[in-house]
């Protein structure tokens, strides 16, 4: 009997879906088998992607080319990553693991710089601009549109400011040793709780809809596979 690749893929997909969904009746060995196998396979797969798509084109192949051509002046650019690679491999040995700190320090330093720029240009500035720009050109609009913009923009501005106030944990210490936030901040934070609750509720609704779609897709795939096996489509 010849098995097609699609049949094997479908059967595996069905098997793993049923094993994972069996968690609905409680934690059980089938679920554990599926999860452990998934972690192993996904890690192995990720490792091969790292090797073939990062290390091979950026480190191994360029080094091989240099060795073949004998143009060792180009090796300067690869010496540092090879050194870092060697240091980080030391992590395998508990005695030499400390050497890997040098590579980790490099990664943390570069990561911190990228994080600073990402936070500034990707989040803080665009979000502030979007909040401010909402009011742009409102003054030249007809009265009803101006009111709508002012109301919506005002609510967004209020939500942004009060949500930020909620995360302000600065407090003055009282003579009895207790600490309390300033009255205005406390009031803003109280309003901010409503906005934060609403924002998380909206995120919850989105994630729930996505999860429900995934569940329906999985059930549909099981039904589709079984129907294709039994000759009905």
């Amino acid at each position: 009997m010849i098995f097609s690749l699609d049949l094997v893929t479908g059967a595996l997909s069905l098997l793993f879906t049923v094993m994972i969904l069996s968690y609905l009746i409680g934690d059980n060995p089938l679920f554990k088998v599926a999860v452990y196998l998934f972690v192993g396979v996904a890690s192995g797969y990720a490792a091969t992607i790292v090797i073939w798509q990062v290390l091979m084109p950026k480190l191994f192949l360029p080094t091989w080319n240099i060795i073949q051509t004998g143009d060792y002046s180009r090796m300067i650019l690869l010496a540092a990553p090879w050194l870092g690679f060697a240091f980080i491999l030391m992590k395998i040995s508990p005695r030499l693991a400390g050497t890997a700190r040098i590579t980790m320090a490099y990664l943390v330093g570069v990561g911190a710089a990228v994080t600073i720029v990402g936070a500034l240009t990707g989040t803080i500035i665009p979000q502030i601009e979007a909040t401010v720009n909402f009011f742009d050109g409102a003054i030249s609009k007809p009265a009803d549109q101006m009111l709508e913009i002012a109301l919506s923009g005002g609510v967004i501005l209020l939500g942004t400011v009060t949500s930020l106030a909620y995360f302000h944990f600065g407090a003055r210490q009282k003579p009895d040793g207790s600490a309390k936030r300033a009255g205005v901040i406390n009031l803003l934070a109280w309003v901010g709780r409503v906005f934060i609750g609403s924002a998380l509720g909206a995120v919850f609704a989105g994630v729930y809809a996505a999860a429900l779609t995934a569940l329906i897709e999985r059930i549909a795939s099981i039904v589709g596979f079984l129907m294709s096996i039994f000759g009905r489509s």
Partner: protein
Amino acid sequence: MRVITAVIAIAFGVLVLLGYFLPQELFPNAAGLQAVLLDWAVILAAAAALIGVFNLFSVHTEKIRRRKKDGIYSALLVMGLIAAFTLGLFLKPQHILMQSILLEGIIIPVEASLMGLLAVSLLYAAVRLLRRRADLMGVAFIATAALIFLGSITLPFGDLPLFGTLIRPWVSQVWALGGARGILIGVGLGALLTGLRVLFGMDRPYGGK
């Protein structure tokens, strides 16, 4: 070693940061240097990921060796890891067998099923939230989620009037957006501060005090 690691983190962090902010006309080499440093970081992060996979492998082989409880599951994990790694190393990840068997047969179905399980756990969590923490934030949370659901669902007798056209868009695009923007700016400020603390040497997550 503590001083050396701090100097490396701060020096290379500042060099990368300068590449973003220095004008190209005045410092033509800054962007090139930054690109080289980022390329090195990508290579080293890949090496760190490999070490992470090796660590997973060694932790579970140790569990098998010591015949710990649930060692059978660790054996399955190790077998899956070795099989996927060996196949991927020889066939490459783009090979049809890797894509069909590993990706479409195991990885994607398990991820999608886990996502599907989330639908049930989220519902359970929402009910627990209502029972255990019916305060202002909890009520706002549930009310917003309910309004968005009511505006999104299609009922047998048709859509609910105003919910889909007015209430849901306003709640999600104005009311909840205000809170989301505050949270996002807060997260951005936190990330900015964490990065600055590393560059000033106040935090040293790579080791050392």
